[in-house]
């Protein structure tokens, strides 16, 4: 069954109306609220925000497996969600890195503080000692060096405590300079206490928490409240009821943040005191999200303020419109009627691509907009190829309808081959972008890819159908519509190739 041109035309009209409907901002023509979730997603460079690349820095001798990295990623994602960012990106990259994008978030210090800290909570049996706040301890969960490799500020305002290199195998005096046995301490921050003391038993860890939240204690001070899971609550009750009037310490990342005397048996809830408002907010979020399985370091960051991007959007839109206008003018002047048709096809092309950007959704970045504008050029190319072929056929003296079909058939291999080669480079760019600038370059590759794919569709389906329909009208039979004077046509029309 052969599809008639007007059937295709009807399809194009419906498709175009649908695309334009999607393109319009959501409050327009949307009685049922279908478009509410369809918005243009702006990349970091347009709406501002923060991008961080966190790299796992495992203690010596520990390798980071995919599961550990995945688990860390999940923890980071929970923390990011707690920051209240809409449409964040959290993905693993390679074997040791996690990429975080927080569009619209404007507090880089807080982002780093919240995401980077290991936040391993422990409640330890201090064996009767009253450990001062800031003490770095060893616990039965592992020595201090293993999870406290990243220095974190504490409420006391004391120097951030990073333990000295703890030699795990104390019996072996051989020092091998080439293979450090533990992470080295930052020299300017001496530890408050040498963590070579006793190993305290961990009773409760962060994994035992059912919930953590900012709240107030009986004096109205802001504190972190936490609740324990049932089985942990039982254990905690056992311990606290048998240690009444003895001290107990709450430790985060091997550093004591609270020490208190047990007055009563405690079952399923507790509070962490002596923190300022910001620390309460951050720690509650971190505890609720869980501790990081491996310490992380920021190896790359991009912070973009919101004003820079808005300015860029304005300029790109102006540039895009001017570019489109120039192309339209050129096409009409050079190719006459087909040029005009291709301009219509181009406008439809732009509406389809933009609708796809909204539906997929594609994160629009500045290079992405450039990719889109570049693809307009490539979309024109398909039309130029076809028209050049049609003109050739017309000059050979073929009837118009035949010339159009022949022109399309001859142009198709070039269009296909050249666009596929562009698509190959887009795919490799996408891979490269995943490693380098993340959404910035990936956005470019994706927009160019979509642009090229849609341009093939508009050239082959839209331009062709419009030409077929219009040119069967007697009004357009004159070859001057094609920019050809009758004198240029070959005298003897050849019937076949």
């Amino acid at each position, binding site marked *: 069954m052969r599809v008639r041109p007007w059937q295709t035309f009807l399809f194009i009209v419906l498709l175009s109306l649908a695309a334009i409907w999607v393109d319009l901002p959501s409050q327009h023509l949307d009685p049922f609220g279908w478009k509410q979730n369809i918005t243009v997603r702006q990349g970091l460079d347009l709406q501002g925000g923060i991008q961080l690349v966190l790299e796992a820095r495992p203690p010596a001798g520990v390798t980071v497996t995919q599961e550990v990295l995945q688990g860390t990623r999940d923890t980071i994602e929970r923390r990011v969600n707690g920051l209240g960012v809409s449409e964040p990106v959290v993905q693993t990259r390679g074997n040791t890195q996690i990429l975080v994008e927080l569009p619209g978030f404007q507090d880089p210090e807080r982002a780093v503080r919240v995401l980077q800290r290991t936040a391993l909570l422990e409640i330890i049996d201090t064996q009767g000692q009253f450990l001062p706040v800031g003490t770095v301890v060893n616990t039965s969960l592992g020595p201090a060096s293993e999870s406290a490799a990243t220095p974190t500020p504490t409420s006391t305002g004391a120097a951030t405590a990073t333990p000295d290199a703890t030699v795990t195998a104390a019996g072996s005096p051989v020092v091998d300079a080439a293979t450090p046995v533990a992470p080295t301490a930052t020299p300017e921050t001496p530890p408050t206490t040498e963590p070579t003391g006793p190993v305290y038993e961990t009773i409760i860890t962060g994994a035992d928490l059912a919930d953590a939240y900012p709240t107030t204690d009986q004096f109205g001070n802001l504190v972190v409240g936490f609740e324990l899971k049932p089985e942990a609550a039982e254990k905690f009750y056992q311990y606290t009821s048998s240690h009444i009037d003895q001290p107990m310490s709450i430790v985060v990342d091997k550093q004591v943040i609270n020490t208190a005397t047990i007055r009563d048996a405690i079952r399923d809830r507790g509070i962490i005191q002596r923190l300022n408002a910001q620390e309460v907010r951050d720690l509650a979020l971190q505890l609720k999200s869980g501790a990081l399985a491996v310490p992380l370091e920021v190896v790359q960051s991009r912070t973009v303020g919101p004003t820079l991007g808005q300015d860029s959007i304005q300029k790109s839109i102006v540039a895009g419109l001017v570019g489109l206008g120039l192309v339209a003018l050129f096409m009409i002047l050079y190719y006459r009627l087909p040029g005009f048709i291709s301009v219509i096809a181009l406008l439809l092309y732009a509406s389809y691509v933009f609708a796809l950007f909204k539906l997929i959704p594609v994160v629009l970045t500045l290079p992405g907009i450039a990719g889109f504008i570049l693809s307009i050029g490539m979309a024109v190319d398909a039309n130029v190829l076809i028209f050049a072929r049609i003109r050739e056929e017309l000059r050979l003296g073929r009837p118009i309808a035949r010339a159009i079909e022949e022109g399309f058939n001859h142009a198709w291999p070039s269009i296909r081959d050249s666009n596929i080669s562009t698509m190959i*480079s887009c795919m490799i760019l996408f891979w490269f972008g995943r490693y380098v600038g993340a959404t910035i370059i990936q956005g470019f590759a994706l927009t160019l890819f979509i642009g090229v794919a849609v341009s093939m569709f508009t050239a082959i389906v839209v331009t062709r159908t419009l030409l077929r329909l219009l040119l069967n009208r007697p009004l357009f039979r004159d070859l001057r519509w094609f920019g050809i004077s009758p004198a240029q046509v070959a005298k003897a029309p050849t019937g076949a190739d």
Partner: protein
Amino acid sequence: MLDLVGKRYYWFLLSILVIVPGMISLAIHGLRLGIDFTGGSLWELQMSRPVQPGEVRQVLAQHGIDDALVQTAADNVVLIRMRELKEGSSEKEQLSAALRDTFGDFTELRLESVGPTLGTAIRNRAVIAVTLTMLGILIYIAWAFRNTNNPFLYGIAAIIAMLHDVAVVVGIFSILGWLRGVEIDALFVTALLTVIGFSVHDTIVVFDRIRENYARRAAPTFEQIVNYSLVQTLVRSLNTSLTVVFTLLALYLLGGETIRTFVLALLIGIVSGTYSSIFNASQIVVVWENRELHRLFARLRRQHAPA
């Protein structure tokens, strides 16, 4: 008919004249690599009053940063390039406080920080990406032209045209880096890969004509077939490039500072890509098919042969 193929050695000469200065600059000065490749930080601040670069450098030097590059732009914007300044670090806090004390309040427009190890990794990936793209395209062309008697010849000629464009863009950017301090970043690699795609795009259209005309035996000799194909596609090549150049020019002039270097690389690459697909790629196919290098070597051997 216009004789494009007959003048092929002049076209090659023109390419060489454009490429050689760039390559000399590349050999002497190399490329000015941005923080994406070397590691380091780019810190853009909008101050509340006009500020001299020297004043900013002085404040930075007081905090142990003596190799910072400071530029000022319109609207009291200050751009600082320095070694890696970690986001959320106490060093950044101290610097911000010091700048605030000296110049009053400011808005942080952006801070990009790349660790030194990451920079090297990105550099390697960039080389791999460019190589992979070329390989992928070579294979695709060899496949698309599998019915010709020498499919890989077309692939290789397209790759040489691509290398030509990469050399032109990289060479010009080396000169620009030397004269104007233009830096190469990850976006530059993006532009390069796009140029590669576009260059092949253009080359294939010409090759496609050669394939078609060859099948129809449109002219008596191969050289004439190629020339005929070039003349047929010349207008299309120029028109397409013109439309892309229009849009890129609009972006370059109106699109804002952030992507200007990126657009410039695309602009140069696309002009070069159009040139190389008309004046290099197809001409290389002719040189090969005519076994001209063969004859050249044979002649050289005869000249140097002992009498």
